[in-house]
Structures are given as C-alpha cells and as structure tokens.
C-alpha cells in the first residue's frame, strides 16, 4: 500500500514538474528553427508563477461552471496522467481504470472547457468551443481505435500490462505493422488533441484561426495558470502515451531505485525527443483551414482502423 502512495506521489511530481518544460522545449525548438534566440526553456514556469500571483478577473455573466472548470480540467488531466505508465511500467491508478478511462478523463476536461468557453458569454469563446467540439468528436474515435490496435497486440486494455509486455518484447516484435499504423494515428491525434499546428496554433490570438486559445480567452490569474498548466500536462500525457506504448524500452519494471533512475532518465529522453519532433513538425507545416482538419483526422481514423485490420489479418 505504501509503495502505491509513493508511486502516486512520484508520478504526480514528475508529471507536474515536466509539463511546463515540454511546452518550453517545443517553443525553444520552434524559435531556433525560425533563427530566433527564443525564450528560455524554463520560461513557462515563470509564467505560471506570475499568473498565480495575479488577481483573476471574472466576467459578470459567468456561472459556477466558469470558475470550477480550471480545477476539473486540472484534476481530470492529472488523473489521466496517473493512468499512464511514466517511468515505471506499473501505474499508480491501474486498479481504477484502463485506456478507456483515460480517454474519457481527457474528454471530461475538454467537455468542461467547452462549457466554460460558452459560459463566459464572449463570442470568441463560443466559436472556440464549437470548433473544439468538431475536432474532439473526430479525434476520439481515431484515438480509441489506435489504442485498441495496440491493446489487442498485448491482449489487454490495461496500459500497465500493455507497456509491461511490450517492454519485455512480448508484443511489438511479432507485429510491427499494426504498431506502425497505430503510432502514426496516435501522433496525429495527439497533435489535434493538444491543439498544435497544423490543427490549431497555440501561439496565435487571431480570431479566424484560434481554437483552444479562443475558449480560454476570458481566463486570467490563477485560473489561467491552472488551464495553461493542464494544457501542458495534457501534452505531456500524450507524449508519454506515445513514447511508452510504442517504444517502452528502458522503462523500470520493478521498484528498485536503480531501475527507477534508468526509467526516469529514459523517460525524459524519449519525451524530449518527441517534443523536439513536434517542434520540427510545427515549423514544417502551415496551419490547415478548419474544414481541411477533417481530412487529417479522417486519415488518423483510417490509419487506426488499418492497424486493427492488420492485427487481425497478420494474426489470422
């Protein structure tokens, strides 16, 4: 029992601490690719501290949903993060849920964020929410299918089992093709869910293009800090998921301190690698028009579906 609490504590700390870092890293990579010096990698931490100190301003039309959303969003995202194996193949909350719970926890946050966007009564918020609804409804099936494809190869929907088996080379080597498809689908899903280019641009406040930024436009002070932190956390959760599900090697499979140390180092390496990849991808592509986003997400869905088909056929 004690080690479960210890695990929860460690994983929470790692996730919360690393979330702003991943955002900072992506920004830095993008800046460098644009030949700018760019802000320091730890700038997001400073931003968070600054925001927590500021007085929030709340629209007079806003209801309780508006103030509750940042907490719900933060909590649900963190809970989702605790369902994913991070540096050890055991997950702290694996008794509580599996992949499906993960998907729904993330969706819960998105749902409340959409409500909050509508709640503040600003036209931008509503616009952002409706766009987010389109994207979310399209990414969800693709995400479920791609994770299922991976789950099937491991024979479990429990992420901890999946990662454990894959780390010990019990799944991935026999079937590279479904994994490849699912991986490609998951990358697209992650990009769409976390609001990165080419689906959304986190660096813009242009009313014609913004999605996520439009929803949180009315937030300020500590609420904004929580929302931003949760967004960083969500990004990190996705990166973790991709890294550990498709390439879990190096992850600790026991609670020994040495294994944990290697696991943590491998984890940070993999996630930073993915963050750099996303930074490069963002610099390579232009943002898609909203109505072209369906093309991309359709592709993700089909990829995930193919992963499933391949699984059945190759196992046939």
């Amino acid at each position: 029992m004690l080690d479960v609490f210890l695990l929860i504590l460690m994983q929470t700390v790692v996730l919360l601490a690393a979330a702003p870092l991943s955002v900072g890293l992506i920004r830095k990579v993008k800046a460098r690719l644009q030949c700018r010096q760019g802000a320091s990698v730890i700038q997001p931490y400073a931003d968070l501290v600054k925001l927590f100190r500021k007085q929030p301003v709340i629209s007079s039309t806003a209801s309780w949903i508006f103030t509750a959303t940042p907490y719900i969003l933060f909590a649900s995202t963190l809970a989702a993060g605790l369902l994913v194996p991070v540096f050890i193949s055991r997950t702290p909350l694996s008794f509580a849920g599996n992949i499906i719970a993960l998907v729904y926890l993330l969706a819960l946050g998105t749902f409340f964020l959409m409500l909050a966007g509508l709640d503040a009564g600003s036209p931008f918020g509503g616009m952002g929410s409706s766009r987010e609804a389109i994207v979310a409804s399209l990414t969800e099936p693709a995400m479920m299918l791609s994770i299922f494809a991976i789950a099937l190869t491991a024979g479990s929907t429990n992420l901890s089992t999946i990662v454990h088996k894959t780390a010990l080379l019990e799944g991935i080597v026999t079937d590279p093709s479904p994994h490849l498809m699912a991986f490609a689908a998951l990358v697209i899903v992650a990009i769409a869910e976390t609001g990165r280019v080419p689906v959304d641009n986190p660096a813009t406040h242009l009313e014609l293009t913004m999605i996520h930024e439009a929803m949180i436009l009315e937030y300020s002070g500590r609420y904004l800090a929580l929302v931003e932190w949760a967004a960083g956390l969500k990004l990190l959760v996705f990166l973790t998921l991709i890294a550990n599900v498709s390439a879990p090697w190096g992850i600790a499979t026991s609670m020994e301190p040495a294994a944990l140390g290697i696991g943590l180092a491998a984890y940070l390496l993999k996630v930073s690698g993915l963050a750099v990849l996303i930074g490069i991808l963002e610099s390579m592509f232009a943002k898609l028009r909203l109505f072209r986003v369906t093309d991309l997400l359709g592709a993700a869905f089909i990829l995930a579906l193919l992963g499933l088909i391949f699984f059945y056929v190759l196992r046939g």
Partner: protein
Amino acid sequence: MPLMTPPIGSQLVDLGSALLLLTCFGIVAQRRLSACVDLFALQSVFLSLTVTLVAFLTGVHHIYIAAALTIIIKAIVIPRILKKVIERLNVSRELVMNINVPASLLISGLLVMVAFLITQPIIPFGHLLTRDSLAIALAIVLIGFFTMIARQKAVTQMIAFLVMENGLFLGATAATYGMPLIVELGVFFDVLVAALIAGIYTNRLQDAFDSVDTAHLSELRE
C-alpha cells in the same frame, strides 16, 4: 545462407508492404499534386526496398534487377516526367474532387478490408515469407483504381494508375517471388511508355482545353 530466420524476415516484408499502403493513403489524402508525386516516388522506394529484402531472403536473383528498375524508372524517371508536366501545366492542387478526402479515405479503408476478404481463401497457399503481402498488394491495386475514379486531374489519375502498377508488382513479388524476367521487363517498358504518353497527352489537353481537368472532358456524350 539466409541470415535472418523466416519470422523476422516475413515481419519486415509485412512492414515494408504496410509502408507502401501507408503512402497509398497519403496519396488519397493529399491534394497537392507535387506532394502526390513525391509520395509516389517514396512508395516506389519502399517497394524497391521490400522487393530487395525478398530477393535477399529468398536468393532469387532476378528480383534484384526488378528492384533496380523500380528505383530508376518509378522513383526517378517517372516522377521527373510528372514534375515537368505539373510545372508546365501550372496547376498545383486539386480543388474539386468527385469524392472528398474523408469519404475517399473511408472508402479506401473499406477496400483494404475487401482485399483481405477476397484473398483470405488463397493466402494459405502462399510462401510463408510473403503471404500477407498479397492482400496488401490487392488493397493497393483497389485503392489506386478507386483514386482514379475519385480524382479529376489528369496528373492524379496518372499517379493512381502508377500506384496500381506498384501494387501489382508487390503482388507479383509476394505471390510468386517475381514473374519471369521477360514479363517483368515488358511490364516496366509498358509502364514507362504509358507514363510518357500520358505526359504528352496532358500537354495536348492543356493546349486544347486550357485545362487538364478531366471534368472538362465531357464534350462526347450520347
């Protein structure tokens, strides 16, 4: 003396075929013509690598020749021709399609399933190494066929035809470790000539119609 044991070898062949199929979907989803040509070239490279792998694993030497021809003709010469055509025509992307991209993707996904269903009864007869690639090859052929219907630009139709040829070549290698050499050479020759002819045609269509949109090709009716 084969260096790899069959299971890993056949997984790698499967992986190569899956990559081919992936680029196929890329072409279905892509609107920019030059990107389609690049994807086709990439697909041909994947094809050549997969086929080389098969040649290496089986020791059937004439497949190497076909692999080399694939690189030269399908990854270098034909993409060059198509790029030239695109440059000359001054069209960069496909705006209007007969079937839009998400629907095309879905239908292509269905076609993959159909291909697997069709080949299910005959797959067990194949070589252990490549038996799954036959289904993927048929899927690529069907998707190429479908893309031809879904798109309007002459260049995209040509790419779709070439994708079909890639699928066929994969199928030939997968099912039988390559056709007799004389047939393979003939097929390459035919494909090359077909690409050349299509290149000439698109130029003439451009001159005659000021467009290579095949939707304009509707003067001949009942």
